């Protein structure tokens, strides 16, 4: 069986690890040893859209990861990626490494720590951690994969097929940037607005009846994001406004991670999402006053409890 390492066992990492463990030999790299012990001893339970318990290996020691691993998925939050990539230096010599973080810049962070062939991914699935060894599978939307460094679309397709065989949705692309940027603009807008207002991603985000309705602001933010993408030469795969409208019509009130982070007073992914988008706007000399405002407000909100 294919040997796979999943580094980071938050909700996305746990969903990938548990499903892949049905078709591959999976080892999870955790930060805390007691987390690894819990996974080794009791397996990883999936509820919600799935209902099974996966048997898998787990360790908190990068040196104990299988040297023969062919694929390593780095599924930590973007704020934890730099230290994770540093811990992996010199390990996983035979593996292709795949990033799956929100925002922009994850691939470059990992590239600086090793010569691994790299794949990019963005994921639209979601889950909720119910404990160290239990994840609820909430949204069964796809994970999109593309080549980044030393890889081809065929490599992306093999990984997508493995993920699909495990029971999740995945698709390979020759160039991930159009999809990655669609999600970037979507996340910068929706996560930022959710973090500031306390609203889950619900109907308010698409509401445009009254002049002061939130949907107008969301659409204006998305329009700025589209202008940045156009200036960067990226032809968006999906219209982020349509993504927003569709998501709010699903009838499910999704709590974006940035909102959960703010409520739990944790560091957010604002730098790799909103910060990355605004820096791209600066680089391409596109004026984005609303995205800039959103970025500044979320940074300041974060500072109110971190500083």
């Amino acid at each position, binding site marked *: 069986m294919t040997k796979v390492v999943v580094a980071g066992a938050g909700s996305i990492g746990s969903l990938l690890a548990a499903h892949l463990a049905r078709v591959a030999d999976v080892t999870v790299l955790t930060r805390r040893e007691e987390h690894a012990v819990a996974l080794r001893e009791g397996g990883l339970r999936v509820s919600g859209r799935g209902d099974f318990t996966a048997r898998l290996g787990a360790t908190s020691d990068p040196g104990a990861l299988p040297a023969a691993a062919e694929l390593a998925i780095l599924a930590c939050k973007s704020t934890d990626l730099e230290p994770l990539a540093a811990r992996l230096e010199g390990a996983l010599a035979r593996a292709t490494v795949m990033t799956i973080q929100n925002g922009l810049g994850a691939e470059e962070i990992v590239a600086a720590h090793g010569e691994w062939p790299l794949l990019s991914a963005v994921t639209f699935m979601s889950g909720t951690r119910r404990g160290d060894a239990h994840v609820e599978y909430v949204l069964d939307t796809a994970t999109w994969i593309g080549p980044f460094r030393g890889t081809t679309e065929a490599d992306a397709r093999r990984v997508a097929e493995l993920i699909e065989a495990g029971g999740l949705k995945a698709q390979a692309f020759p160039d991930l940037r159009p999809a990655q940027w669609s999600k970037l603009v979507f996340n910068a807008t929706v996560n930022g607005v959710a973090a*500031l207002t306390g609203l889950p991603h619900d109907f308010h985000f698409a509401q445009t009846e009254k002049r002061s*309705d939130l949907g*107008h602001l969301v659409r204006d933010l998305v329009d700025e994001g589209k202008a940045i993408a156009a200036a960067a030469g990226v032809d968006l795969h999906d219209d982020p406004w349509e993504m927003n409208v569709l998501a709010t019509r699903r009838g499910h009130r999704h709590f974006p991670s940035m909102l959960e982070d703010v409520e739990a007073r944790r560091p957010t992914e604002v730098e790799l999402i909103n910060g990355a988008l605004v820096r791209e706007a600066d680089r391409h000399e596109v004026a984005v*006053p609303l995205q800039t405002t959103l970025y500044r*407000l979320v940074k300041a*909100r974060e500072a109110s409890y971190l500083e």
Partner: protein
Amino acid sequence: MGCGAVGSLFAAHLSLLDDVETWAFDLNELHIAAINRDGLRLSGAGEVVGHPRGTSDPAALPPCDFGIVATKAMHTRPAIAATAHAFADGCVATVQNGLGNEEELAGHVERVIRGTTFPAGKLLEPGHVQWDVKGETTLGPFDGRTPEAEVQRLADACTRAGMPAEAVDDARGPQWRKVIFNASTNPIGALTGLTHGRVCERPDLRALVTGLVDEGKAVAAAQGIELDADPEELIDHAARKDVAYDHKASMLQDVEAQRQTEVDYLNGGIVRFGREGGVPTPLNAAIQALVKGVEASWTQS
């Protein structure tokens, strides 16, 4: 009308005058009962015990020469709708925050006085208000229907009572100065959780405040309003450690207590007057939408 902190400051002071009969109208019956039993006490910036006649019943109000409306802006309409009968031959002044209160009052009474007041405090317990800040009140006619002599008479009464007030021809300058100050700083505190001083010491956030101020100034200028002071200087002054560095904006206090904010009358007012004057106000509109989103988040099922 409306005896929270600001209304109580006016009511307690005016009731000290021998030639003025002062009524305190508020829906908070505990507060009114305490006022009628023990008087209305102010402490802090000054010690005052006044004895206005308190009521929560609009029908109890006699015909009055003047009304002073000090409710939160979203309560203007019900307050004046219930009490307008008492001012059929009088003038009604607003000392509320925000834009649009005068227009609302003018829909119910003939003679309206535009007012802006700087004193502040908070209701500590029924019948007792903490007086935090002394300050001036500026009064001016809303339109040609309000006699200037009546504006002067109200200003004189306030001044004699210990609440210094000035009658002016056009009170929009101080009003817009205060609105721009509040609209550019209060919601930033409310959205980020930062005190006024911490908002101002983050250069990126201070730049956002300037962006909001500039929109407000442009809307005021398009109406021919001359601000009586630069909001930027007032904002920086207030950020000093010895002034209001640690002050939590009232809107932040509202958000923490999950009380409806006055954002529709601050940023929303600037947006509305901007639209009427053809002046774009994208930042104020964005801030209004975000704060409305915060309010919506409290009623989630």
